[in-house]
């Protein structure tokens, strides 16, 4: 180890970067490489709190037993759930597919279980709605529309003896969670007439409009003999040049105008599908096609496990964990200083570096900090100093045998290194195993613990050995003869 200056510089640079990343109000990393005002690299740097700290819900859904599903239908089911969850206005919601027809939903900050569960569980209701007396532009996309089908379904859900709500009481959940729910629009005091639900569609696909062009449209195919299909054909035949609305979960998707030639084919009895044009981009067309195809094509999802953590518990946990962390680290710092004196200073500096680097990585990667994750980190602090203790005990022994200070320090580090490496490696492997164990839904708390403990041990190999060594060497060379004359300062 001759390049102490080089390593000292490296450690200092690392420390500065880590400290900057750890700043509570770190602005994030934004780089505009070509100067066009658009950031090529835009990364937020912040602490991601786990559900147990933030409060929130986590739901594991599975395709109901007996239903068949494949990749496409599961992906569409996932998209549907995601759309609904976004409709609840949850920020940072996570909707992920898992093996075996499962979807995992994380809703940070949501304790309104009933609302969340209803939204997640129900399969979408896609409707084609009678808009014959609506003029183009009268309603905006996304308007909340009440239909006869929705009323019928709501009444079917009523418990015995319960009164149906008044038509004016129907609402759609607001996009903005803090706003009041949006009242549903009525058609002259009555619900709009549902012509057909999505179950009448056999297929839908995005397609390029015309021979050449960049405009996209959506082709759909009717399900022969499906419920409401006859009514649909009848409506199309008799309402040429009038609009028909497509409504998904009470929200207006679009209301295309029925073209005369489609109406003619409907009257002639040759209509088995059609095309919806509307100046779509490719993405818009694909989304609409997916919504038509799967919006109401149910894969019934069952909730097979869930967690809800109340917000107050999370708030208390955050405060307490921070307090516990500070008290724990301070005690360890003091212990090392008192027990090992001068090497203790080096160990303390290395420990502070360890804490800062860890925290910076938590924010940078980012690692979701849950209570078990914080525990894993705090325990890795214990292991971090263990490395130093092994080294310092060795150094003391070497000094007692009468070896010179520099040689004793070198010998202490090189002899303890193998023990530190082996023990850290074996625990890191155990962390890997725990990490995979934590991929089971019920054991997910384990994952955070495994990540932070494993990360801590890996960083420890750098801080406990390299950084402490460099710090100790620097202190010894700065102190000159003082240390040589008073071995007490080295804890001997």
């Amino acid at each position: 180890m001759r390049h102490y200056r080089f390593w000292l510089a490296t450690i200092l640079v690392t420390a500065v970067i880590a400290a900057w990343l750890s700043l509570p109000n770190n602005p994030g990393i934004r780089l505009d490489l070509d100067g066009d005002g658009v950031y090529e690299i835009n990364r937020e740097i912040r602490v991601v709190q786990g559900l147990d700290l933030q409060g929130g819900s986590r739901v594991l859904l599975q395709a109901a037993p007996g239903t068949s599903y494949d990749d496409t239908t599961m992906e569409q089911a996932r998209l549907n759930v995601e759309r609904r969850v976004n409709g609840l206005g949850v920020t940072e919601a996570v909707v992920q597919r898992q093996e075996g027809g499962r979807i995992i939903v994380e809703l940070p900050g949501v304790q309104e279980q009933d609302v969340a569960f209803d939204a997640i569980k129900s399969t979408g209701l896609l409707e084609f709605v009678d808009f014959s007396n609506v003029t183009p532009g009268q309603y905006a996309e996304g308007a909340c529309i009440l239909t006869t089908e929705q009323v019928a379904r709501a009444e079917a859900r009523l418990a015995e003896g319960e009164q149906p709500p008044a038509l004016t009481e129907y609402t759609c959940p607001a996009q903005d969670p803090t706003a009041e729910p949006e009242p549903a629009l009525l058609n002259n005091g009555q619900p709009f007439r549902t012509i057909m639900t999505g179950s009448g569609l056999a297929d839908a696909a995005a397609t390029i409009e015309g021979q050449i062009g960049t405009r996209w449209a959506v082709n759909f195919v009717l399900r022969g003999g499906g419920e409401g299909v006859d009514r649909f054909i009848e409506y199309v035949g008799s309402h040429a040049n009038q609009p028909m609305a497509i409504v998904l979960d009470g929200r207006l998707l679009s209301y295309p105008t029925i073209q005369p030639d489609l109406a003619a084919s409907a009257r002639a009895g040759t209509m088995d599908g059609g095309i919806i044009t509307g100046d779509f981009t490719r993405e818009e067309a694909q989304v609409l096609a997916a919504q038509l195809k799967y919006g109401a094509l149910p894969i019934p999802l069952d909730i097979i496990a869930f967690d809800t953590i109340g917000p107050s518990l999370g708030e208390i946990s955050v405060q307490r964990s921070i307090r516990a962390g500070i008290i724990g680290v301070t005690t360890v710092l003091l212990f090392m200083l008192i027990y090992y004196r001068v090497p203790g200073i080096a160990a303390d500096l290395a420990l502070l570096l360890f804490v800062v680097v860890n925290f910076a990585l938590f924010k940078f990667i980012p690692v979701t900090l849950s209570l078990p994750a914080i525990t894993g980190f705090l325990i890795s602090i214990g292991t971090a100093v263990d490395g130093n203790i092994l080294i310092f005990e060795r150094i003391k022994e070497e000094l007692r045998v009468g070896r010179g200070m520099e040689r004793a320090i070198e010998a202490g580090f090189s002899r303890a290194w193998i023990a530190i490496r082996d023990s850290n490696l074996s625990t890191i492997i155990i962390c890997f195993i725990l990490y995979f164990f934590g991929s089971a839904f019920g054991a997910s708390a384990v994952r955070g613990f495994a990540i932070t403990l494993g990360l801590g041990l890996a960083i420890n190999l750098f801080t406990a050995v390299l950084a402490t060594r460099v710090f100790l060497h620097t202190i010894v060379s700065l102190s000159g003869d003082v240390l040589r004359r008073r071995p007490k300062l080295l804890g001997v």
Partner: protein
Amino acid sequence: MFQFAQRRKLFYLISATIIIPGLIAMLYSTIQFGSPVRLSIDFTGGTLMEVSFVENFSEQDVRDALNAYGLEDIIVQRLNPITTDTIEGAHDAAGSRWQIRTKEIDDISHFRAYLRENLGEFWSPQSVEDDPQREAALTTSSVSATVGREVTRAALTATLAVAVVILGFIVFAFRRVPHAFRYGACAIIAMFHDILVTMGIMSMLGIFFGWEADALFLTAVLTVVGYSVQDTIVVFDRIRENIPKYRGESYELIVNRSVLETIHRSVATQLNAVFVMIAIVLFGGETIRQFIAILLIGLVSGTYSSIFTAVPLLVSWERGELPFVNREAKRIHHEAPAAR
């Protein structure tokens, strides 16, 4: 000089006074609950709910309400109410706070509506009430039997994998040591010592205080096992190093010397871990207190066993005091030179 190796019988006795009650507790627990430690819903499936009411009830009131709902296997526990000073802006403490565990409840919304109807409003701190998106301070988890079985399977896989890793680690650490088998066996016995201590204490805590083993409990045990083996290896390493250094000294003396040399490290390391963990137990989040407590017990046991179980065992083995194994060991001892 403290005699670690010489007083080995005393140390065996100390271990036995902890492990034997633990074994009895595990036996009792197996008869009573069907498993050596009480298992949480993570493994068994079910619904666990934590709820605060504005009013104060007796445990019987809550139990009656749950029975009337037709729930089976109910466990009700009173928790300390969340005090006002722990949350900013809380107006007053909850009347009563409960933990309820039952078989899986299918319609949780309906169940909560039922609780509201029969036991009055849920309590929530002011800061929560002011925020329309947040609901009462409730914590619920529900796990279906299928998911519970999957976690159980994952737990078994993880345990097996850790066992393989540790065995590999031990084989690796003692690969060039004479009597490698003996060292390895003693390290493994010390490890089982820690598992038994941890499980036994957990079992007792389950019987007397209703503690339940969840996924984190297993994590604690597996982590402890890793640390325990490392502790033992540090001590054994030193014995190994000292044997050629002090030729002519008795084995017991060398072992004693080695323990004394490493005990600073053991104690210092242990103290630091204990500082951190006690800080978490006393000041940290409530929900992981059990996890930390088990980790703490396991780590203390791990350090104890590396010095007071593994080392004395090694000496007993050397002196031929061990029943059963020693015949075996002697045979290996005799065969070893022939193999060279």
